[in-house]
C-alpha cells in the first residue's frame, strides 16, 4: 500500500531569504522529479515551485523514508544544508496532504487569497510530470481532484471576484461608473510607479486615447510613448478636462493641480458626461470638493485602500465557503483512496481461509481410504463453498459504504483478527 506524502515550505513558514534559496528553476524541478522517481521507495512524484512556495508530492511505500530522501535531494540540488531549511518544512501524510494540496490549488493558502495564478502553475508542473512519467495513478487522480475542487471554489464562491490591488480597484470602480472602459479617454497628470501600474490596467481594458501631462515635457513624451499616447504641456490640462473621462493624478505638487472651479467650468462643455478622478498622489492633486459636483467621482489613495480592505474582507468571508468545499473534496478522495486498500485485504483474507481449509482437508484425507473420485470432487466443492460462505459476510462488510468513515479501523481489525500482516 502506497501512502501519499507532501513536504514543502511556503510564505507562512519560511522568510523570503530562505524561499529564494530553495525555489527551484524549471530545470531543477524536472531534475528533482526524475531523481526522486528513480528511488525504489518512491513510486510517483510531482514537484512544483513558485516564488511563494516549494511543494513536493510523493507516493511512497515508506513515507518517512521518502521524506528523508526528498530533503536530501533538495539540499543537494540547492547546495544548502538540510539543517538550514528543515525547520521551515511541513510534512503532511494522506488526508492532511490532500487537504493541503486542495487549499493550495484553490488559492486558499496564497498570500493574496483568491489569486488565480497558482492553479495554472500547478497545472503546468503536473503536465511536466506526466510528460516525464513520474506521476502515476495515485497522483493523477489526486491532482485531477485538486483541479476540480479549485474550479468549483472559483465558480461557487466569490473568492476571486473583487479587486485586491489599488490599481485594479480603480479599474473596478471605473467599470461601475462607465459600464465599460473601452474607448474611454484617459489623462495621466504627473508620473509615478503606481500611476503607471494603474495605466497598464486601464490599457488592458482597451481604453481609448491616452493623454500625458507632465511638468517636464520630455518625461511626459517618454511616458506617452510607452502607452502609445499623446503628451501635452502641463498648462493645457484645463482644456483637456472637456475631452477626457478618466483622470489619474500623480504629481509631486504641493497644492491641488485640478481645482473645483476648473472642473465646474468644464462640465457644461462635457454635456455632463461622467468624470472619474483617480488621485494617487500624496499630497493630493485633485480637490476632494470635486466629488460633490454632479457626475464627478473622486477617489484618493485612502479611498482606494478602503475599497481594497473591504474586498479583502469579502474574500476572507468567501474563503470560509471554500474551506467547506475543500473538506468535501478531501472526504471524496479519501473514500477512493481507502477503497484501494480494501481489495488487497480481501484477497489476503481469502488466501488465509483457503490455506486453513486446504490444510485441514489434506490432514483429514490422509487418514481416509477408499474414496472415489466423485467423493473427492464433492469434497472439493464443499471446500469452495466453505471458503465462499465464510468470506461472504466479511467481504460485503468491508466493501460496504456504511463503514466508510472508519474503514481504516475495520481493515486494521480484520487484518489483526486473521493475522494477515504476519
Amino acid at each position, binding site marked *: 500500500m502506497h501512502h501519499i506524502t507532501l513536504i514543502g515550505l511556503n510564505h507562512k513558514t519560511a522568510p523570503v531569504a530562505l524561499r529564494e534559496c530553495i525555489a527551484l528553476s524549471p530545470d531543477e524541478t524536472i531534475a528533482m522529479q526524475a531523481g526522486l522517481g528513480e528511488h525504489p521507495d518512491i513510486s510517483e512524484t510531482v514537484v512544483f515551485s513558485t516564488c511563494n512556495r516549494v511543494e513536493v508530492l510523493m507516493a511512497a511505500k515508506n513515507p518517512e523514508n521518502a521524506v528523508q530522501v526528498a530533503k536530501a535531494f533538495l539540499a543537494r540540488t540547492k547546495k544548502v544544508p538540510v539543517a538550514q531549511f528543515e525547520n521551515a518544512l511541513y510534512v503532511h501524510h494522506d488526508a492532511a496532504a490532500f487537504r493541503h494540496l486542495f487549499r493550495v490549488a484553490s488559492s486558499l493558502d496564497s498570500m493574496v487569497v483568491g489569486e488565480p495564478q497558482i492553479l495554472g502553475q500547478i497545472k503546468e508542473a503536473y503536465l511536466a510530470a506526466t510528460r516525464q512519467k513520474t506521476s502515476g495513478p495515485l497522483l493523477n487522480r489526486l491532482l485531477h481532484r485538486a483541479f476540480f475542487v479549485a474550479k468549483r471554489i472559483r465558480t461557487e464562491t466569490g473568492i476571486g471576484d473583487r479587486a485586491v490591488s489599488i490599481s485594479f480597484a480603480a479599474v473596478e470602480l471605473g467599470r*461601475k461608473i462607465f459600464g465599460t472602459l473601452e474607448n474611454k479617454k484617459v489623462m495621466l497628470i504627473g508620473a509615478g510607479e503606481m500611476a503607471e501600474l494603474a495605466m497598464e490596467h486601464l490599457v488592458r481594458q482597451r481604453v481609448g486615447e491616452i493623454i500625458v501631462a507632465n511638468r517636464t515635457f520630455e518625461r511626459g513624451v517618454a511616458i506617452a510613448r510607452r502607452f502609445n499616447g499623446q503628451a501635452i504641456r502641463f498648462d493645457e490640462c484645463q482644456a483637456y478636462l472637456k475631452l477626457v473621462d478618466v483622470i489619474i493624478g500623480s504629481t509631486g505638487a504641493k497644492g491641488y493641480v485640478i481645482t473645483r472651479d476648473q472642473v465646474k467650468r468644464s462640465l457644461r462643455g462635457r454635456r*455632463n458626461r461622467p468624470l472619474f478622478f483617480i488621485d494617487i498622489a500624496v499630497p493630493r492633486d485633485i480637490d476632494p470638493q470635486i466629488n460633490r459636483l454632479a457626475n464627478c467621482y473622486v477617489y484618493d489613495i485612502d479611498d482606494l485602500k478602503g475599497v481594497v480592505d473591504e474586498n479583502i474582507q469579502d474574500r476572507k468571508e468567501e474563503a470560509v465557503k471554500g474551506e467547506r468545499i475543500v473538506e468535501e473534496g478531501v472526504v471524496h478522495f479519501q473514500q477512493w483512496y481507502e477503497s484501494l486498500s480494501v481489495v488487497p485485504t480481501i484477497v489476503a483474507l481469502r488466501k488465509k481461509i483457503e490455506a486453513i481449509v486446504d490444510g485441514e482437508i489434506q490432514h483429514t484425507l490422509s487418514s481416509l481410504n477408499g474414496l472415489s473420485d466423485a467423493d473427492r470432487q464433492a469434497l472439493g466443492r464443499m471446500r469452495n463453498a466453505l471458503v465462499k460462505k465464510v468470506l461472504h459476510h466479511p467481504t460485503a462488510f468491508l466493501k460496504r459504504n456504511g463503514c466508510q468513515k472508519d474503514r481504516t479501523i475495520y481493515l486494521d481489525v480484520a487484518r489483526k483478527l486473521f493475522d494477515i500482516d504476519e
Partner: protein
Amino acid sequence: MEILVLIACGFYFLSAAGYLFYLIFQKNYLQRVGFDLLLAGFICHTIALGLGWFHSGVIPVRNLYETLLTAGWATAGIFLVFSYRLRMKIFGIYAAPLITLIMIVATQVARVPVDARPLFNNFWLVVHILTIFLGEAALALAGGAGVLYLIQEQAIKTKRHGFFYKRLPSLELLDGTGYACLISGFTLMTFGLVTGIIYAKSVWGHFWSWDPKEIWAGITWLLYAALLHERLTVGWRGRRSAILAIIGFAVIVFTFLGVNFFLQGHHGEFTRL
C-alpha cells in the same frame, strides 16, 4: 376571468419573490425563474383581460378594479419588452413588486362596472387608453431606474460600498435604461394625449375643456418634455435626471388616481369604487 386574475396575481407574487432571492443570492437561475414567472403571469393576465373585453364588449377600464388590472398588465408588458431588449437583469426587483402591488390593490377594491355605452368602442378612445397606459407604465419603469441610479450613485459618491453596490449595474447602464424608458414612455404618452384630444373633439365638440384631469395630464407632459429637452440640449443626465424621473412618476400617480379622488372631472367614472 376572476380565477385567471388570481392566478396571474400569484405568478407575479412568486416572480417578485424570485427577484428578491436573486438580489440576495446573486444566482442567475433565480433571475431566470423570476422572469419566467412574470411571463406566465402576464400570459394569464392577458387572457383574463381579453376574455373580459370579449364578454362585455368594451375595453376593460370601467371601474377602478378594471383600470388597475389594465395598468398592471401594461406595466408587466412594458417590463417584459424592456428586459428583453435592455439586458438589465436586476430591474425586476423594482418591476415585479410594483406589478404585484398594483394587482393586490386591484383585487381589494369593489367592482361596479359603469354602463357600457357605445362611445366606449370609439377607435380614438381605445387607442387613447392603450397608449396612455403603456406610456405611463414605461415612465413608471423610468422612475424605478431613477431610484436604482440614486442608490448606486450614493454608494459610489460616499465611498461606502454596501449591499447594493455589488448587485447593481453600472451608472451608465442605469442612466441609459432610464433614458430609454423615458423616451418611449414620453412618445407613447404624447400619442395618448393627442388621441384623447381628438376623441374629446369628436364627442364634446372641443379639444380642451380645462378639466382637472386634462390640466394635470398637461402638467405631467410638460414636466417630461422639460426633462427630455434639457437632456437633449445640455446633456442633463445622472442624478438630476433620475430625481426628475421619480418626481414625474409621482405626478403620474397623482394624475392617474389623485385627481379622480380629490378633484372632480370627466374621467371620474373610470376609477369609481
